[in-house]
């Protein structure tokens, strides 16, 4: 028999925080994925909210493209507050 579809599971650990990827599991549909995610990933109060997304719907960046995607940010120090020289007597900025 074929494998059941794969779902990626995201959990919000408490109110105010982002949902974070915690792993994946197989389920026939999103209802079952939700039920299983609750049993597999929140047995010890690890979450207050669950997202399930069928893995095939996720578009991921390719590691081979990492240099062109992410390296350009490396030499843009002027995007950070510490790039700017201010006098010491200026507090709280």
């Amino acid at each position, binding site marked *: *028999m*074929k*494998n*059941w579809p*794969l779902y990626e599971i995201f959990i919000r650990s408490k109110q105010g925080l982002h949902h974070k990827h915690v*792993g*994946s*599991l*197989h389920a*026939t*549909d999103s209802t*079952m994925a939700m039920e299983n995610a609750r*049993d*597999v990933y929140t*047995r*010890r109060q690890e979450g207050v909210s669950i997202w399930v997304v069928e893995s095939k719907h996720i578009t*991921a960046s*390719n*590691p081979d493209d990492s240099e062109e995607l992410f390296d350009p940010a490396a030499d843009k120090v002027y995007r950070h507050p510490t790039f700017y020289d201010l006098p010491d007597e200026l507090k709280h900025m």
Partner: protein
Amino acid sequence: MNLEEKFQSKVDQEIKIEPKDWMPDAYRKTLIRQISQHAHSEIVGMLPEGNWITRAPSLRRKVGLIAKVQDEAGHGLYLYAAAETLGVERNTLFEQLHDGSAKYSSIFNYPTLSWADIGSIGWLVDGAAIMNQVPLCRCSFGPYARAMVRVCKEESFHQRQGFEILLALSKGTEAQKAMLQESVNRWWWPSMMMFGPSDADSPHTARSMKWKIKRFTNDELRQKFVDVCYEQAKVLNVTLPDPDIKWNEERGHFDYGEINWDEFWDVVKGNGPCNKQRIATRVKAHEEGAWVREAAMAYAEKQEQRKNKVA
């Protein structure tokens, strides 16, 4: 730098390898074998413990044991999912377990004959597993390392649960104390074997260490285990069944006796007390559950069609 050198340089710098990154074929194969073997161990490991759920001596013991067995299922699922990120299918992994081409930890081919065995599994078997698993949280392969962090968090409850069972027996009647000692006598050596063959007979250790899949050799972990258990055994007032265990001032470790490697290889090859029974139980559950899996899939497809029709 070629691909292999780039890969090794990342590993050396403790940068995790993620599923879509380039990796040597042998690294991928080693991980699939190791992670799936680990997943199978969690799943088969439910069987000897499940054996005692209906006969747990109190409600407190029963809820603890049920929660523990449920955790083992969860650990198996985390690990299967980690293995699948390497491009192997879940069904393929199941087939390999069922046809005997994949192994699982030999420890689960020993029977649970008394209630004390549930305690011994928690103390010794989970204790040995923790020794093995804690360094795996720093494994170079991201999904495996993350799964292991989760597993290790839960595993410490398992060990304490087991130790408490034994502690109660150690304060009980003469019969309970005897049950405790008899159980430790049976589980000690198989637990020592859980760390695998000695370093001299473990040909892949060097490569796995270079790839940072492994952080310690089998013998290093086994030594840690002996050192820790010696003190814990005193709390339980039990004797470890090895007359050669004694403190070695020079090494700063306990010496221990020779492991019966013939028994180890015999159980690995399928001739342990419960090998056939364990696999037969797994295969039966899988086959008898086939109609449930098919029905669930058919139901989901029907719901999907119905939704599309309405839309």
